[in-house]
């Protein structure tokens, strides 16, 4: 079974490193190849890492509240870099303040993200979603991990 590569990072001027560290660990444990570009990452750095490693998905974290500004336009730039179809997940505390999640989700889906995760998401959920979205389920892949 081919090992899928994920690019992981925290976008913008955001330094929240703890969740990123745990996600990297959890995705590796789950059998993915993790390219973790860490905190304070620009959109360009995400894309470059994805292109260079032939990644199957980009997972963007934004915790500090500036997510709306920082995440906008990533899908378009992916297209320009020739990876317009790459899977884009985003999660964390995406906006400033305690806001209704369904409207936040809608905004980010409109920005071109495939899946949007609320604050406090445990790694199990994106792992299951990735397996589904990357077609790893049903072919026994989940048994390998």
């Amino acid at each position, binding site marked *: 079974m081919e090992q899928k590569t994920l690019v992981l990072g925290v976008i913008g001027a955001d330094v929240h490193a703890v969740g990123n560290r745990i996600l990297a660990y959890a995705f590796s444990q789950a059998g993915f190849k993790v390219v973790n570009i860490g905190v304070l990452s620009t959109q360009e750095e995400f894309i470059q890492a994805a292109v260079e490693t032939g990644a199957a998905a980009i997972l963007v974290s934004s915790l500090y509240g500036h997510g709306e500004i920082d995440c906008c336009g990533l899908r378009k730039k992916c297209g320009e870099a020739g990876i317009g179809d790459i899977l884009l997940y985003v999660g964390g*505390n995406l906006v400033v303040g305690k806001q209704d999640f369904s409207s936040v989700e809608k905004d980010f889906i409109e920005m071109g993200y495939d899946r949007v995760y609320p604050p406090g998401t445990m790694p199990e959920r994106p792992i299951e979603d990735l397996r589904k979205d990357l077609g790893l389920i049903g072919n026994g892949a989940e048994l390998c991990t």
Partner: protein
Amino acid sequence: MKLTAAKMNQEEFARQRQAVLGQWVTGREVDFSEAVAYHKELPESKIFALKLLEAKNNGSTYAQPRAGVALLNEHLELMRYLQAEGEADFLPTTIDSYTRQNRYPEAQIGIDESRRAGRSMLNGFPAVNHGVAACRRIIESVSVPVQIRHGTPDARLLAEITLAGGFTAFEGGGISYNIPYAKDVPLESTLKYWQYVDRLAGLYEEEGIRINREPFGPLTGTLVPPSISHAVTIIECILAVAQGVGNITLGYGQCGNLIQDTAALHTLPILAEEYLARLGLPAVTITTVFHQWMGGFPQDEAKAYGVISWGAVTAALAKATKVIVKTPHEALGIPTKEANAAGIRTTKQILNMLRGQTLPRTAELASEEKVILEETRLILDQVLDLGEGDIAVGTVRAFQAGIIDVPFAPSRFNAGKILPVRDSLGAVRFLDFGNLPFTGDIKDYHRERIARRGREEGREPAFQMVIDDIYAIGKGILVGRPRS
């Protein structure tokens, strides 16, 4: 300029100042002697150092929130609200994350977008963009002292503008605002940036203006063992005093075990006085600040009130001079002003009820204090050795060697080899010591306690235990017992 802990000379300061004030257009508004004159006119009730002293002298613990929004008028309203409805003893002005990274053009976009959206799109107040006059509006709008709180590796311009703007307290330091807040900024650079900030505070001090400085104790806020944060805090205290700072508040972030947290708060001033004296530096006014739990919070507000309260209780029993307050919105987002005020009121109810009550000194407390003192001294002495007596130089080398090592820090100038984990009673211990210069006895102390927990849980202490501990408080517990 070669790195040294010695006082920065006036020429070097002047040279940098010119460059710093040119970094953004509002730098031009700074006029030091006019600022000194402004400070001299401030009523005593607005001077941070004086109110801290009042708390210290009458044995109270005072409460301070974190808060900041993008636009000035909304920020003024927020400040007034937290004073009136939150009964805050001290006010903050928390700076947004673009400003913290010196990205003033992006901060400007945030300001403009916030105007358009009708809500704050920034996670703090962009003080540099707003400038000196706006800062003074804040000081003049409230009746209690206000502090700048942030997380800025290079805070020179921010300090220039906000101190000229009448703020009487400024948080941060060359380590504590780098290692948890940056990825690629060399420690050598931030130590120098912050020597500038401290020198600036020292210049005010020389003019008779008391500026309170506060190293950021909690660092990454996540299972930081006391001796690690103490080592950093004491170094920043020493570096600040060397630049002429006269009033320092030493910080520490709650770990969650009452005895350990009390021991941590008790030992901070002891260590500061000891090392200042050893290095021939003047004795300064030392106070302490306790941060309510800085790691992941429960999303449920009722549970968050429990976490907030436990921090308030510990602050009161351990007699911190000041406590930094969390809010019931912590896990979800920047709090509304109502949620922020609620967190303060919960805290103040407890502080007021516990006024005068203390945790009596017991064998357990004494032994925890002894361990913290010993560990911190082992680290600091090694730092001084590495620096051949110069604590600034030693700090850079110590981080290189992993002699100081902050858990979960994003900086690549941090070794990242240690692993903290809780023991059975929730005290934070070392699962992996990395290169910390600890004795065998100390290591055994930690290992023994962690092993006991392992036995209780029927598992080998390993990274999964650390992860469980990181999630624990958010899930309603302190010790991350295996999920059953």
